[in-house]
């Protein structure tokens, strides 16, 4: 793969993330609390990618720090978002404990273990946990009676994007150290694959936030 192609894919990922963040901000007043959290997540995603590519890289600072920090925010925001959507107080303790433990693990891994390397342990464990949460959300959709089809629900499309992204990249995160060790020349293929899955997920996110502007907030927070 040409380096230009890889950069094209990377920029596409970055600016599709920006598009998702912008549609979320544009429709902000019509979004439910979980979708507002998701919009914040996409703003952070864009900023993290932008800082890594446009600030850290030109100054020869290792870019992995940006994604390691972003990963911790991603975990916390997604868990919070699903806690609000599922509106089940019984989930408060497992979600809180999970968020604290995984964030601590992410911090320890970033500061003491993998440091400036790609924090693959954190990415793998977080992806696995978040994938389980997304699947639990789909189970909840099936188990609870809905008055309208979920395809009209913005959050269904956001979850579809997350399910596709995490299921496609979890093995990549688990194997990234092995790939770096044995196939460093081909690493770019795997990273490009990761970015393509991110772009596909962004298309689902964009559609979800787009229809959120047409319908009433569909996943209200229990607090609201």
């Amino acid at each position: 793969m040409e380096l230009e192609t890889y950069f094209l894919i990377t920029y596409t990922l970055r600016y599709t993330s920006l598009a998702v963040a912008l549609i979320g901000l544009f429709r902000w007043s019509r979004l439910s609390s979980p979708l507002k959290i998701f919009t914040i997540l996409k703003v952070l995603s864009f900023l993290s990618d932008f800082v890594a590519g446009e600030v850290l890289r030109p100054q020869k600072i290792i870019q992995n720090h940006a994604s390691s920090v972003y990963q911790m925010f991603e975990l916390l925001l997604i868990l919070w978002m699903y806690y609000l959507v599922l509106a089940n107080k019984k989930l408060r303790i497992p979600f809180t404990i999970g968020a604290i433990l995984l964030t601590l693990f992410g911090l320890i891994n970033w500061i003491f273990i993998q440091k400036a390397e790609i924090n693959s342990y954190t990415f793998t464990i977080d992806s696995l946990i978040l994938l389980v949460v997304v699947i639990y959300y789909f189970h909840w959709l099936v188990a609870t009676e809905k008055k309208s089809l979920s395809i009209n629900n913005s959050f269904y499309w956001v979850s579809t994007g997350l399910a596709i992204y995490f299921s496609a990249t979890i093995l990549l995160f688990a194997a990234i150290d092995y790939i770096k060790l044995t196939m460093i020349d081909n690493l770019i293929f795997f990273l490009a694959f990761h970015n393509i899955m991110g772009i596909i997920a962004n298309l689902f996110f964009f559609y979800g936030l787009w229809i959120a502007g047409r319908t009433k907030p569909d996943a209200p927070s229990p607090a609201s």
Partner: protein
Amino acid sequence: MTDNPDTYFVLLFVAGTAVMLLMAVAIVLFVIFHQKKMMKEEVKQQRMELDYQKKMLKAALESQESERKRVAKDLHDDVGMMLMTLRVNLNDQTNNGVLEELRQLVDETHESVRRISWDLMPTTIDNFGLFQSVQEMCDRLSRNGKVQVTYSETGQRQTLDKDQELLLYRIAQESVSNALKHAHALKIEVRFEWIDDSLKLSILDDGVGFDFPTPHAKIDGRHGLGLYNLENRVALLGASLAFEKNDPTGTIVSITTPLSTHEPH
């Protein structure tokens, strides 16, 4: 990626990722298919409940009609016959003032019994059909001179089944009765219009009007039993019911029955 372990790894990676992705897509699609299936079943269930309610309603109305028929027959055949016999016997007695009063009382009672019997189940509906019966009802109501009830029919008449005729008759009867009792109308017009594949029955009056229900509001107890019965009969006919203000005063009640698509209850 030329040596064996790397190729093996790449194949394993591609296969594993493909399986994961397929599972995710399958879960996402399953949610939609499952929800669609559940919603279809819910609609089917609601339709069955509606059919059951219609059947119950039809059974209740049929039972009411049958009871009316029985009471009308008893009044006409037994009480009416007895009064007639009494009247004939009175004619044979010596003519004096008391007997004359009794004769008058018997005549009035006989007339009342005939009227009640006719109201309960007009014999003309079985013998001559809906239109003759409604016309006769209008003539009978106009006969006392207090109200003017007119009848009209336009368009090419088509065939109605017995159930439809009886339901339309009861609707006309109920609407005219409402106009007389509640709207205190002095002029009422009962109009049948055959329009393409539908029959429109309109009852126009010049009464004081009433707060009729909004187009989509369900008629309930607050609007009286008469209107509730009216709506039930309209539903059994598969017809539509509309209320409008008449100009300058009064109300127009319109019932439009589709003829070709009518499903007999």
